[in-house]
């Protein structure tokens, strides 16, 4: 495992849906960057956020706690937080936490975008 460089890109903003691609290790700094960008997108009216984690292999509990801040902010505006392309270990981590009760989880980005775009 290398110390993967963290990257965050907003790759799509269609109406109420915004898609962020996240690559690398999600720790405190990366989690904070995601939270800041998510708050900006929410303020701009994107109530549905999709986090594409296909290039993320490891996340720590501090990064997770910052994702929970994002989830809390989205739930406050009756929005939707979704994840796609999770590695098996991150999927298991989210399952341990019970995250699927509050966030939507998709196998891939295409199915996520289709489902979220049609969701009111």
């Amino acid at each position, binding site marked *: *495992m290398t*110390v993967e460089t963290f990257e965050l890109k907003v790759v799509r903003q269609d109406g109420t849906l915004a898609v962020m691609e996240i690559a690398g*290790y999600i*720790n405190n700094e990366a989690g904070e960057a995601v939270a800041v960008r998510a708050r900006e997108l929410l303020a701009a009216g994107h109530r549905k956020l999709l986090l594409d984690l296909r290039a993320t*292999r*490891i*996340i*720590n*509990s*501090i990064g*997770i*706690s*910052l994702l*929970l*801040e994002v*989830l*809390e902010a989205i*739930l406050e505006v009756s929005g939707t937080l979704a994840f796609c392309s999770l*590695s*098996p*270990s991150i999927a*298991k*981590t989210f399952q*341990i*936490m*019970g*995250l699927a*009760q*509050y966030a939507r989880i998709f196998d891939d980005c295409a199915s996520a975008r289709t489902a979220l775009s049609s969701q009111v």
Partner: protein
Amino acid sequence: MAETERVRLVLPLAPHAELLPAWAIEDLGRRVGFSRDTLEEVKLAVVEACLNALEYGGGNVQVEITGFTGARPRLEVVVEDGGPGFDPGTVPAPRLEAKLHAKRKRGWGLELIRHLMDDVVIRSRPGCTRIEMTRFQEGR
């Protein structure tokens, strides 16, 4: 007869120090025959143990990783720190619903470790906390 290989590390107080044991886990785990997915779960657990030790351990964190081949291939990881210690029995299991409404959303580390590893033993007293974690290649 089982063969063992062992790596010992002293973690520096440096950014991403919690990731350093992952290299050894990858190497020993592959030799023991672990799948990539299982190794990633072990790494996540050990990252959590190291984060706790680095945060509360007073700056002296040691990690020992042992790979066992033979009848029950497994990885054993011990993370030890010299911090003030804690009573693991008093650490509540986190609940997502409560965390969503709480100011402090952290506190997932031990829960994740317990679910991602097959056996976890925590021995803690003032001056020494050891988290002993085992993951078997074929499950418990």
